[in-house]
């Protein structure tokens, strides 16, 4: 079956044509333009050219796979609405997959961090072991990714915040360390311990600030940036390249954007089984920036 793959979750607009057979996948054509503001203009001509290159007409397609992000919303929606409208016009199913998973799968064996640029000096990220997602997807500042990885792998119990800052510090250090050792091995435990101390310090800082009458609710204190060495072996994705100095692990520079064939591979079981298609909803990891108005502002002063 001929499957069209689309992804616009990164600065790249990707269109790929992949043949799914009973026992494998065969990439037939793939096109990509890297321009964070051009998804709306480039994607449709790219699809047309990709199909033309393989001598395939749209009505020959049997399914469409689209990367659901996470990614900057405006560009992401271009890929999803294009996939949805084509699927509707052709009467074929559409399947959504996590765009980071496409990169994670393509990255192959080992422990890998996939990070893409979330703008505002943040990354969308997830971790993979042998191509399979372990944690995420999530969004964080590059310097906070290590903490987020450890926190995600730590039992909820130890994440409970005790109102007494000293109790919280002790709890965070002992349990995070313990959890980290069981989760990622002794090698990563040093990172976890450092994180726990940093978190504890932040908690103490917040508690102190609250005592001083300063409201810090909803805003975590600045924790020191910590690399992801020990937690993963390497990283891929354009976010990993951009913030390589923060992460401090080798970056797969050839693997920056989700490859079409990897996206199709993630949906291959559903495609082969003829599973019903799904509505394509972006992985919105951020809420819209909108503030409800408070009382009316007087114009007379």
């Amino acid at each position, binding site marked *: 079956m001929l499957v069209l793959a689309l992804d616009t979750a990164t600065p790249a607009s990707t269109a790929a044509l992949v043949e799914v057979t009973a026992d494998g996948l065969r990439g037939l054509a793939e096109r990509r333009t890297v321009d964070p503001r051009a*998804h*709306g*203009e*480039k*994607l*449709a*001509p790219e*699809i*047309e050219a990709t199909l033309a290159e393989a001598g395939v007409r*749209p*009505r020959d397609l049997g399914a469409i796979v689209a990367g659901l992000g996470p990614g900057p*919303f*405006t560009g992401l*929606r*271009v890929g*999803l*609405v*294009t*996939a*949805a*409208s*084509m699927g*509707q*016009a*052709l009467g074929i199913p559409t399947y959504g997959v996590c765009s980071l998973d496409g990169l994670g799968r393509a990255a192959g064996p080992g422990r890998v961090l996939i990070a893409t640029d979330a703008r505002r000096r943040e990354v969308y990220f997830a971790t993979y072991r042998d191509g399979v997602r372990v944690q995420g997807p999530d969004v964080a500042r590059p310097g906070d990714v290590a903490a987020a990885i450890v926190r995600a792998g730590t039992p909820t119990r130890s994440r409970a915040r005790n109102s007494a800052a000293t109790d919280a510090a002790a709890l965070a250090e002992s349990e995070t360390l313990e959890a980290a050792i069981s989760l990622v091995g002794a090698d990563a435990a040093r990172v976890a311990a450092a994180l726990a101390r940093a978190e504890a310090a932040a908690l103490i800082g917040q508690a102190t600030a609250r005592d001083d009458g300063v409201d810090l609710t909803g805003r975590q204190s600045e924790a020191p940036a910590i690399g992801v060495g020990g937690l993963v072996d390497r990283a891929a994705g354009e976010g990993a390249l951009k913030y390589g100095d923060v992460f401090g692990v080798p970056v797969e520079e050839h693997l920056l954007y989700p490859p079409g064939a990897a996206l199709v591979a993630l949906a291959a079981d559903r495609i082969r089984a003829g599973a019903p298609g799904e*509505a394509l*909803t*972006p992985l*919105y990891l951020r809420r*819209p*920036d*909108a*503030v*409800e*108005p408070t009382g*009316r502002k*007087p*114009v*007379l002063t």
Partner: protein
Amino acid sequence: MADEPLVLGIETSCDETGIGIVRGHTLLADALASSVDQHARFGGVVPEVASRAHLEALVPTMQRALEEAKVTLADIDAIAVTSGPGLAGALLVGVAAAKGYALAADKPVYGVNHLAAHVAVDTLEHGPLPEPAIAMLVSGGHSSLLLVDDLTNGVTPLGATIDDAAGEAFDKVARLLGLGFPGGPIIDRTAKEGDPASIAFPRGLTAPKDLAAHRFDFSFSGLKTAVARWVEARERAGEPVPIADVSASFQEAVCDVLTAKAIEACRTNGVGTLVIGGGVAANSRLRVLAEERAAKHGIEVRVPRPALCTDNGAMVAALGSRLVAAGVAPSRLDLPADSAMPLTAVSVAG
């Protein structure tokens, strides 16, 4: 007539996801999904919220439009889509969808101007538009006076608001009076109980010195501030605010300026037809006053029914239909969304 082009129109420039289908001048379907309720608590349209809603609504709205018109995408001759002006992220959803449909179904796509579509929609109700005509478009997003010589070719802007749009003024005054969002329909209703002559609110850009530079331009910011000051002065004095009188007097000030300038534009250009479109065209006082004043000068006023005045897909299909009939070349697949699309471009050249 079955040989007239069957055109589908997609509109996503603001908070309405609209898909319309027309054959020639005949409206076959006008499916609409609105995210207005999601914006109400913010007191205005939130672009990101609107874009999310468009993505969710597009496929089901298309399904409803096709069912309503009893046609399939394969039957469609051309797809028109609003490529601007409007909210960039919102426009992009519609433009990308139009391309997806066009690509999959092998149809030509026309990127069209939203304002010109507001003018074209009148043909669905009143038949071919006598040209030249004057068009006045008044909504939460626009307040423009246009000279329409040939709608398929280009439109000459005569004037526009220099600050708030007319509909925006209705929204802001409604909020000021605690009446809710959107403000247009609520003020229209509230004003019916009030005296439009009770408070003399200012008429923006009508003084002789303003007319020299802004003959056909509008300004509603000063009016909004005047209403706010008047209301606050009342509140500070501990007196009740006569909501109905304030609504009626404010509405009268807006409609007075709009109709006076529109009629003047017709007379100056020797034009006998005035088309009014946009959400504010649904205002009952605006319709009455425009007809009263136009009748004195033998000018015909054409106002589509309220559902066609607000943003919808039918208007885009109506303009697309005119473009196809006039033999205008379609746009290309790299058609951009242009949030500031100028009126000189009725459609994006192929």
